């Protein structure tokens, strides 16, 4: 499966939400990373067909998605941002309803629902009302519904928002499990969601594509730009204003600052290994206020 975005643009009231976005996706997990308002949801809405782009086209295996019509929908599984689903529906009932909407034959629907409930570990909650589920369980219902039609492309919009760390890890593992032989596009502003599972990261800022690369390559690109600086309480304010800081840790009387800078920020600054969070801050952290 190959998805190609060609020059996608979308304006709202004269302001670009997405500008000339081009990218190519093949099987694997793609982390769509950007701050709030970067254009992630706009891109996804255009991709799934809820919005129409002003310019550009999306190709599925080199075929214009628009020419696929209704068949395009059988390629995609989608989990929107903050879904609440129907609180008065039971889990099983909701998934069956989604099967009906996705026009999955009844003979296959029951089996598929059972199978997915097993995978997302919700078999015991099948008769629970959705309103009675925890946030994590609800998101697992969400990914199960997205997988019902066994899509080639799985699109997840901020799927871990509001989940506790344990549920977040569980959800990440599920994404990895479902990523075999399909494209997974995972939009998030939480770096840890994609740090260890994404094959590629797409950095989106103010509607423009900043970079698309593997996490390793992005981290490698920051080589020599991440430093630790030790500061005293008295000198802290000055450093906070002057430097781009990704982390602070207090140890007895000293404060260790993790600094992102193209040049050595202080004489005693020590160069350290970068991580994806540093990449995020490097590209999106302008104007960071302390």
């Amino acid at each position: 499966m190959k998805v190609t975005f060609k020059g996608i643009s979308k304006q709202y009231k004269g302001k670009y939400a997405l500008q000339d976005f081009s990218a190519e996706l093949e099987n694997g997990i793609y982390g769509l990373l950007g701050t709030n308002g970067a254009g992630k949801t706009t891109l996804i809405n255009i991709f799934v067909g809820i919005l129409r782009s002003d310019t550009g086209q999306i190709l599925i295996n080199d075929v214009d998605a628009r020419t696929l019509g209704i068949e395009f929908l059988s390629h995609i599984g989608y989990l929107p941002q903050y879904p609440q689903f129907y609180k008065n529906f039971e889990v099983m009932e909701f998934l069956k309803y989604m099967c009906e909407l996705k026009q999955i034959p009844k003979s296959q629907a029951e089996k598929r629902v059972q199978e997915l409930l097993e995978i997302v570990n919700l078999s015991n909650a099948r008769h629970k009302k959705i309103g009675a589920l925890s946030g994590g369980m609800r998101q697992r219902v969400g990914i199960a519904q997205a997988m019902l039609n066994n899509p080639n492309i799985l699109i997840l919009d901020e799927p871990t928002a509001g989940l506790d760390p344990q549920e977040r890890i569980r959800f990440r593992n599920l994404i990895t499990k479902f990523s075999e032989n399909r494209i997974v596009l995972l939009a998030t502003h939480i770096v840890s969601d994609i740090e260890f599972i994404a094959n590629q990261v797409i950095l989106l800022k103010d509607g423009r594509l900043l970079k698309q690369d593997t996490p390793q390559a992005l981290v490698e690109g920051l080589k020599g730009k991440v430093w630790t600086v030790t500061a005293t309480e008295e000198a802290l304010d000055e450093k906070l204003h002057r430097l781009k800081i990704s982390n602070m840790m207090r140890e007895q009387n000293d404060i260790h600052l993790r600094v992102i800078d193209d040049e050595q920020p202080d004489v005693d600054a020590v160069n350290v290994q970068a991580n994806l969070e540093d990449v995020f801050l490097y590209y999106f952290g302008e104007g960071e206020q302390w």
Partner: protein
Amino acid sequence: MVTLIGYEWRKHFLKWTIVFAVAVFSILNVLKIYSIHGGNSLLADSSWKELYSQMYGQFEGKITDEKIGKLMKIYRPLEQQTADHTASTTYRNSNTQLSNVYEDFNFYRWSYVNPMKYAYDYKAYAHAVVTTANENIIFFKSLNNGYEARKNAAVAELFQGRTITNFSYTEMYQYYVQYDFSSFLVLLICLYGLMSVFLSEKETEMDTLLLTTKAGGAKTVWAKLLASSLFICSICLWFWLIDFVAYSWIYASWDAASSPIYVLEEYIHSALNVSLGQYAALSAVLKTFGMLFFGLAFLALSYLFRNALVPFIIGLLALFGCISLQEAYMDSGHILVKTMNPFVLVVNRELFHKAEYIPLWGYPFPSYIVALLFSILWGTIFLSGLMISVRKNALRKGGG
């Protein structure tokens, strides 16, 4: 599609709050009918009811000279005794059937003499209307006023051969055809139930998800519309049944079902030549049609907003607006304004209790036909608006 309709029904209408509202409103409805009976019925008084039952067997059915004679034999002496207001008011005098001679007089006057006289005279009255209409036809033709001539021809045709041959107890229908409280309750339930149909999809963020499924676009919208129509029809059927059963049970009669509608004095100029039973059914169908229109309007409101409170208030205000408009033009000569208001279908006696015509392309159309056409027009506008908005939202138009 049937399965989708089932799911929509389950989603929006199978809620305990709606079941609770229907149950409470049903009880309220029966209590209201009971109070109407208590406050208005001649037979709410047990002694009147008892006497009426005793006498009814002698006078019901075909009106004959013999029955009239028998009734007058009872009534005339009472009339004479009470004419100068000097009769004894002694309670339960041996010569009286009720508390005193005045009550006896009033009983026979209101329960038997007046209704039977009205029935007996109706044939002559209808004949006079036909004669006048025929004279008018000649007059208007001489003035080359084709529309008025055609209108009078329609009136003459409508009143031709009208007669009331039977006497029956009509009180139940008299109040039944004027009863609107249940319609108001149905509208409130519909407003509450339908407001969530589109709105809840937005509240739960399901609207975007639906559009990414094959049947989540137009098919789901149609399923919603059909499930909503089914809901409206079910609620209407339930309340109209309660009305009919409660009226029949509380008034202990539906004897007049086969009598013509103009047996009720308020319908002396009725636009229809149907029996009261047929009219009850027709009125229920038309009320349901009116409810379907209001349902569409509520659905359009549900589609336009993301928060339930605002459209609910707007819906309620629109409803009160229509009711006020209806009240303002009731029995007025502004027939066109009346028929433009869809609420007239809900209180449709306004359309049927007298024959009114509206000129369309030079021909007289009965007001109920025009009201129906207007409602279809408004309904089509709402439906088209809804479908256009839905299509605009589903830009890829992939969703079937």
